[in-house]
């Protein structure tokens, strides 16, 4: 009898724990699913209106507007066009979630109904077709969707959420510019920083991870090799 009672108590405890856990997972999944169509509109708008690195003015304004709507304290113009949003939700850790915002000088050839037709002048004054060929439009939309979910489930966590919209990832200038402009000094210092990059190789529905260095260090070098050219008989004088 006592034995049976223990088992049933155990069952109730675990049942309770699992029930609660499933509820939270269900609510997160439900939030993501219910947002899909309205965020598709945001995605298509971003996809159709890409902006080159250091010129992400309209994109940054859109991100700032979305963050304000979600109740974040928003600061713009950090490290150029960078956007920082803070959502304070009681004592706890500070977690930073970052998206990049810029696009590339690529002429879109996807055949999509919402393909980009944007042409922009680059820093040298040359006109370039522009495309979100590195998926930063998807990064931004997923970032906003995640922040929105976290705001709607704010009773489930305590802490400070830092939303970073970074300019100029292509050319790898934007992160340094935001740090140099005081990202970790003017705003709460994060305990953790997280981000996604869309994969062109993994199927949608999956996440890829690596517990260690996941992307390489890169440096470009310019090498000039000199010689003695053949412009005339004088070259024998060397």
């Amino acid at each position, binding site marked *: 009898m006592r034995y049976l009672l223990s088992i049933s108590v155990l069952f109730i405890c675990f049942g309770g724990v699992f029930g609660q856990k499933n509820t939270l997972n269900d609510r997160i999944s439900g939030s993501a699913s219910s947002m899909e169509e309205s965020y598709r509109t945001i995605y298509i708008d971003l996809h159709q209106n890409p902006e080159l690195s250091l010129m992400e003015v309209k994109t940054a304004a859109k991100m700032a507007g979305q963050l304000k709507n979600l109740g974040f304290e928003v600061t713009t113009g950090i490290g150029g066009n960078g956007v920082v949003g803070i959502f304070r939700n009681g004592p706890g850790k500070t977690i930073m979630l970052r998206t990049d915002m810029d696009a590339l000088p690529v002429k879109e050839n996807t055949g999509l109904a919402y393909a980009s037709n944007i042409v922009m002048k680059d820093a040298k004054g040359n006109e370039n077709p522009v495309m979100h060929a590195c998926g930063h439009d998807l990064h931004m939309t997923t970032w906003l969707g995640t922040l929105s979910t976290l705001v709607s489930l704010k009773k489930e*966590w*305590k*802490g400070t959420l830092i939303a970073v919209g970074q300019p100029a990832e292509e050319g790898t200038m934007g992160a340094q510019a935001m740090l140099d402009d005081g990202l970790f000094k003017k705003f709460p210092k994060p305990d953790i920083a*997280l981000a996604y990059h869309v994969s062109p190789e993994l199927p949608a529905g999956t996440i890829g991870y690596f517990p260690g260095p996941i992307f390489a260090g890169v440096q470009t070098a310019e090498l000039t090799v000199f*010689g003695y050219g053949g412009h005339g008989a004088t070259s024998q004088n060397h």
Partner: protein
Amino acid sequence: MVDMVPPHKTIDPIVLSAKIILDIQTIISRKINPIKPAVVTVGSIHGGTRANVIPDEVKMMITIRFFEQDVYKTIRESLINISKGAAVSAGLPDEKMPRIIFDEPLDLPVNNDPALVMEAVESMKDILGEKNIIQVDPAMVAEDFAKYGATEEKIPIGLFWLGGVATDKYKDFENKLITLPPLHNSAFAPDFGPAFKTGVTAMSKTIIDLFGNKK
């Protein structure tokens, strides 16, 4: 062909560059520990204007990719030594030594914090299922997200791949019917719906758990 100087009176930077390029191929194969991934690619070379003129200089653009600092140092030193050594052996004087300019600052590797990643993976598997959270090999691409983890604050960072390939395209790819456009390709088109839902679900769950909601 009166305009062509006798070739033995020149030091031809094109031939010299060819030697240097071939020698550069031995950096990875003979200088770097084979279990440590690295790349050195001469991606651009320009020199000369026409067939019968030996030019004064050749310019090359080289990309270096690495995960560890000592590997980077070996590559950098080797590039300097190889190009200088070839110029010396060609008989060029000191003022004609090759010039090599390294872009600074370099892009750091994205050093994911292993403990943070595994904590996130546990959360992601809990909500999306074990089979959808996949360990991958590191990639030789760059991302300046690395910088947030490389300040004096030493903040643990975690960068994850968000799967973007539409399921039907992925099946065709697995059956070798198509190739998949890489990032920066004009045909790159992720499958918004499932990628968005997956990304939002996994990251929201991870962040709530990291805030300490684990029960």
